[in-house]
């Protein structure tokens, strides 16, 4: 749970959730709740992530073998399923990140500095 009001937070753009999950896992294996927390925290609580929505996304990634999973024990001694980036997941992350940055830059250019002022 975050301290901000939910209505102020940004909804994720379609297709970005997979990228965020992959990115979160670059620092090492993480369990479901950890991934959700990490996305919220690193975005400074700007992004709204419905925790339940992470599960289908992770299943999708698992099916494509970009991440792998195994049961382990969390820092406060709870059993949890830990996810890990695979080699092809890492490649996918690089590819997707490049693509996203290009897209963001391009959209930023079009919107221009005027938009920032307004």
């Amino acid at each position: 749970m975050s301290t901000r009001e939910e209505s102020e937070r940004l909804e994720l753009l379609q297709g970005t959730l997979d990228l965020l999950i992959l990115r979160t896992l670059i620092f090492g294996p993480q369990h479901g709740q950890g991934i959700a927390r990490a996305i919220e925290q690193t975005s400074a609580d700007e992004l709204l992530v419905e925790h339940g929505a992470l599960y289908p996304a992770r299943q999708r990634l698992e099916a494509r073998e970009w991440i792998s999973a195994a049961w382990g024990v969390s820092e406060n001694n709870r059993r949890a399923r830990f996810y890990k980036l695979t080699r092809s997941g890492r490649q996918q992350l690089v590819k997707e990140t490049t693509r996203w940055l290009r897209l963001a830059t391009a959209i930023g250019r079009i919107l221009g500095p005027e938009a920032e002022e307004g």
Partner: protein
Amino acid sequence: MFWSKRKQGDFSAELESHLQIETDRLHEQGFAESEARAAARRALGNRTSAEERFYESTRWMSWDLLWRDIRFGLRMLARNRVSTAAAIVTLALGIGANTAVFSLLNAVLLRNLPVQQPRELALFGEAQGMGSMDEFPKASLQLFSYPFFREFRQKNQVFFDVAAVSSILFTTHGRVAGGANLEKIGAELVSGSYFHTFGVNPILGRTLSDADDQHPGAHPVAVASFSWWQRRMAQDPAILGKTITIGHTVYSIIGVAPPEFFGVTVGQSPDVWIPLAMEKEISPGWNGLEKNLFQSLYVIGRRKPGVTMEQAGANTNLLLQQIIHEYAGPQPSVKQVEDMQHARIDLTPAATGLTHLRQAFSAPLAILMGVVALVLLIACANVANLLLARASARQREIAVRMSIGARRSRLIRQLLVESALMGLTGAALGVLLASAASRLLLVMVSTGSETLPISVAPDA
């Protein structure tokens, strides 16, 4: 992913662990235990729908639903025992009767002989008439003499090989393997080319060859049929060399024909095949091996590949005229000249073999088939009625299911599955019934004390 190795329980455990960890975190931040738990749940969103989505992603949903439909259908059928039983029995009777009659029809009228390339076979004439006749040929020929067969076989260019079979099955009595008792034996006299023409290979020993059919009285050999070998010899592999004594002649058994081969006449199954050269020894009254006009044989030829029925017919008739002109001699009488102008051989396709049953039963069988087809139609109408009655009784159930959200397609599917279950059960019972019924039919059409040797088992 149709088949995930991950179990539903594993997924639920993960969700639970997620909730736990989130609750712990919120608890640490100072929320009360119950509040923390509720907040964690809110953050997770709809747990049931997540679990359902997982369930659906792990299997081929249509199969899962089908399996549920089948189980539900079985329960529904079991609940209405009486109408279900009525429908199934009606269907079973209809299907059983049809299958039984068709099995017989198939065996008598339609099924090909169990020989190689049955379509290449051509019967000389239509196998009308049995026994022997000695009239000079003057119309469409049905029976042929041994000398005619020999000469024709030697001179023709359109047939791969030609076989002759005695038009009657000789039922004689003989001693088997030197035994004391006279046993009934059905012997079919055939030419040495018989097995070669049909492409039938023995399962034991050898079959008759040309060398077994050369000189009258000089070839006391016999090929046993599979059914006789099974019945009389208990499939003893040491049958080769055993003897059958018929009259004063001792025949040694040289081979066994394959199980499916019953000869070429449907409804007649000889115990042994003996060379035509032994005609006089089998039946002393029949002594026509050297008589040009002792016509007692059916002749069947196998066309060479690429030779059409018309070409074969033309060549056959040309040869026929040549041969009967020889028979008439250099100075034929006026009557003989006229007869010869009318003498001809009509080739008929013999893929389904010869049978006297065909002439006798084709019309009755066709009528019977029509009748049972009608019976099936009536059975179907009855079942439709039953289902209709049941559907109106189930209106309430269907209304309830629709109101709690069942899609129209699911309901239709459910009803279809129920009907299919009923139909399949009826069909299975019907086929069982058919095998008993076709045997009964066979007994009914068999005139003598013995059942006609026809295989009415459904085809593979």
